[in-house]
């Protein structure tokens, strides 16, 4: 087990390194105005040239990459250009990351708490009205782009219940709507998979045997069917984490929550290359950590998974 974790960890670190390098090189393809900021108009072309040289943007690309890593190891992500001029990117992000983490984790927990029981109920009432209703919900949420129903929820639910439209840290009620919106997608996928695995499991021979032996329906559900259906579910955990990252980009800027997702939208719109780069690095690292944890969870939960399949693919 430890060997597997070690190998998987090593793989994640290598991947992280490769991705950071690719992202860095790609961002160098962006127009250079993004580095000049608000002062661009006041500078003559020669001044701009000097400015860019001082920033190190005229060095050979590999030297730039080396410097970038040297800075990164010292925890220096560069300085913001237009978003909050000359404030270190890391400080800006540090202010925001707690909001994003709080919303993301709450959404993951909430969607498991609602989605898994919903899937179980749907499987038990297969073909009845609850199942149909749930299926309708899943189809809607999966097919319609999330932006559309996020917007409609924000417009109409706030109207109907007379809620404030924007996030306010001191009013707990304003936490609710963004959280629910963010959870709608993951709830649908948890319910869908849970239902599918439960139905699959219920049709297996050992369940028929247990029924024939007279095992109580309740025992059957809880100690046989659900236990086995949980196993494949573990692998969707990282996908949920990745999803909440994406979802937070919408939700945070819609409700003006001061988190990283909203920051990314702002930084892109203001062409602040340094902030964009820092955020992209953090988002990709979160993705890698999510997948790493998901793999470990899978290995822990299912003893049948062959360890040391470092190079294979799920």
């Amino acid at each position, binding site marked *: 087990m430890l060997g597997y974790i070690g190998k998987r960890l090593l*793989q*994640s670190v290598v*991947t*992280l390194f*490769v*991705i950071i390098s690719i*992202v860095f090189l*790609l*961002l160098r*393809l*962006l127009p250079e105005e993004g580095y000049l900021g608000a002062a661009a108009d006041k500078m003559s072309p020669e001044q701009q040239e000097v400015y860019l040289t001082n920033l190190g943007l005229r060095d050979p690309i590999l030297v730039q990459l080396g410097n970038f890593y040297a800075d990164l190891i010292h925890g220096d992500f560069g300085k913001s250009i237009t978003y909050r001029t000359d404030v270190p990117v890391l400080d800006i992000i540090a202010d925001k990351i707690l909001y994003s983490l709080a919303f993301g984790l709450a959404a993951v927990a909430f969607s498991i708490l609602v989605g898994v029981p919903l899937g179980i109920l749907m499987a038990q009432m297969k073909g009845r009205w609850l199942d149909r209703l749930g299926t309708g919900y899943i*189809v*809607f949420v*999966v*097919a*319609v*782009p*999330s*932006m*559309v129903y996020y*917007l*409609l929820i*924000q*417009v109409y639910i706030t*109207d109907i219940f007379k809620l404030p*439209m924007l996030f306010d840290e001191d009013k707990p009620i304003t936490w609710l709507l963004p959280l629910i919106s963010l959870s709608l997608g993951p709830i649908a996928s948890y319910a869908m998979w849970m239902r599918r695995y439960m139905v699959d499991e219920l049709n297996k021979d050992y369940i028929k045997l247990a029924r024939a032996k007279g095992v109580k329906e309740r025992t059957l559900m809880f100690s046989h069917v659900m236990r086995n259906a949980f196993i494949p579910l573990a692998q969707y955990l990282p996908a949920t984490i*990745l999803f909440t*990252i*994406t979802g937070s*980009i*919408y939700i945070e*800027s819609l409700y003006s929550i001061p988190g990283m997702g909203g920051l*990314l*939208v702002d930084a*892109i*719109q203001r062409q602040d290359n340094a902030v*964009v780069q820092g955020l*992209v690095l953090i*988002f*990709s690292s*979160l*993705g*890698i950590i999510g*997948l790493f944890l998901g793999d470990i969870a899978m290995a822990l939960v299912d003893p049948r998974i062959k360890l040391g399949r470092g*190079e*294979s*693919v799920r």
Partner: protein
Amino acid sequence: MGLYSEEIRNITDKSSEQLFEFAVSDENKAEQSGYSNYSYWRSTWKSFIKNKVAVFLLLLVIGIVFFVLIQPILPNQKSPTEIYLDDQTGYQARNIEPNGEYWFGTNSIGQDLWARIWAGTRTSLLIGVVVALVEVIVGITIGALWGYSRKLETPISHAYNVIENIPTTIVLILMSLILRPSISTIIIAMCITGWVEMARFIRNQIVILRDREYNLASRTLGTPSHRIILKNLLPYLISIIMLRMSLAIPFAIGAEVFLTYIGLGLPISEPSLGNLINEGRVLMMSPDLRYQLIFPSVVLSVITISFYIIGNSFADAADPKNHV
């Protein structure tokens, strides 16, 4: 003794080179030899039309596509990009609610929303279909090579392990940031991220199928690899491929909405469902103007849900297990 060698000589005479050539399979002859008049596609179609909802939605989507294509040449249609002026005041006809003149009203600078919505649907469907096609073609090709060729397996797996770790959204943002917004760059950005899932899916299925007995038999008989992949493996995957493809269209449309929202989408001069919804979002604070958000949202939801349901029921119908 002499008799035997006589016999052997006769065998050599009787045999000819022709016997050692690979037979070409002829579907018609194959059909003749058996009694069944089973046809895969006919059977698929038969089980598909049993699902009335899906058939209705299929007709609806065909109707929408047809309408969207001929809408510009119909009489009494306005231009989607022209700014209209109010006859009485001479100012721009801003934010006019739906009426007989402007069927879906006008937007905040006086453009006709009815025309814009259909032009936008045209753009979004174009993006969706192109992205879905590229995704399927590239995904299947790479997935098939990845699953079938043992030499390519390790390098592609390593590349995949890196790619899969980057959130798709981030790639989408990066690519659109680097390539300036236009229809073709949006398509490129989505294609770069789209094929990966498809390839992995095809690969996993092929790994399961490639060593089944019928493929082993095929290989021993000397069937070339490309024929095994095309004729033995891919037909098995038709239902899954159709499902992924019909899902790719709603996802591409959704991605376009997302890119527009964060400011990397198409310019307003090129209407798409994404920037129509975004225009509506800006105005949603005033209840009277919410029609500008509702109309494009409804059109978009109808299209994406239809594709999703059609895809799912077609995949069910195409699955040979459901043919009797």
